[in-house]
């Protein structure tokens, strides 16, 4: 990497650090009202749902017959997750379904 590459790396790392640390540093001193706390309480589910949706829409994996392999595998993972209530089982089921569907339908 060139000098400018290292500069880009260090500044990128610093920017990322600030994004992660500043809200904790600033907001941990505040006493938030009930509405603000409720709002923040909905952030985890909303942000994870948005990331899953964006991944599925932007990187679809199509079978030869036009089915979305990634959406099917996501559905399998969801069902397995609801039944098992286990992170590990859900992740393994999703990956296994994705690879299996890719093999059989791809």
């Amino acid at each position, binding site marked *: 990497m060139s000098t400018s590459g290292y500069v880009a790396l*260090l500044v990128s790392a610093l920017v990322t650090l600030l994004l992660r640390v500043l809200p904790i*540093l600033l907001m*941990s001193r505040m006493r938030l009202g009930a509405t603000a706390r409720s709002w923040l309480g*909905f952030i985890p589910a*909303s*942000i994870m749902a948005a990331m899953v949706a*964006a991944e599925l829409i932007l990187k679809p994996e199509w079978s030869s017959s036009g089915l979305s392999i990634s959406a099917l595998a996501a559905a399998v993972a969801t069902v397995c997750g609801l039944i098992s209530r286990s992170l590990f089982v859900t992740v393994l089921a*999703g990956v296994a379904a994705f690879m299996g569907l890719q093999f059989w339908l791809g």
Partner: protein
Amino acid sequence: MKKNQSRFETVFVDPAVTPQEQNSISNTDPSSQPTVPGREDGAGALFKAGVIACLPTILGYWSIGFACGAIGTVSGFSPLEIVLLSGLLYAGSAQFLFYSLYAAGAGALSIVAGVLLINLRHILMSSYMAMYFQRSTAMQKLIGGALLTDETFAVAVQYGNRHGDLPFAWLLGLNVTAWLNWIVANLMGALLAAALPESLVHGLGFSLVSMFIALLLMTWLASRQRMLELLAVAISVLVVAVFVKRLEANLVILLATVSAATVATVVLNRQRESRGGPRP
């Protein structure tokens, strides 16, 4: 700790969680221990529990880290540079972006701008986490925030929801395990880039999506207001579906999150008002 708990009780403590649900996440419940979390011998046990809580996400870190390191090598980066990137930047999507932009000859400014954009969502995560750092030292806030990732955030959210508290030793165990695994996975990917079958890397890539589905489900199952959470999820997905191909993806994720949380909060406030005062 008791004082800290009561402060967030209305939103963050879920009294309806069954013992079975609690066991599925962690076998160590700090509230059952006499020692104060983060002090004396309790800290060691909490750290260990944090390490254990990280284990379900390891497959995700390894598959993505592996692929990320391999792409670094393919893009012409040395193993040392790849380790530096994964240790300092510590963000999969930002590293992918860094490699591709740098290899394409982009300047430092556009690389930094891209990394900023792709990591903007961490502001919302960090804001949420701030709740649990009210009595922490500045150093704990710095370390706790510095190692925040999508995965550690989601795992920590579950712990916080269940216990109403996020002991620093537990968070440190989770964070350090995730961080070290990420660096090692990147290095292994960098070294084994040529030997990996492409289809395997591609298939493992889906573990990222599976993991977020899993983390979302666990968060939802532990929630005390599942209908409203479901509403938030539906709005978030809808906003992404409508805008993700028209705007920059990371901005759409922010937009979706903010609108979903806002609508859910408005509905919640209306429910509270119609019931006349605080919930039972």
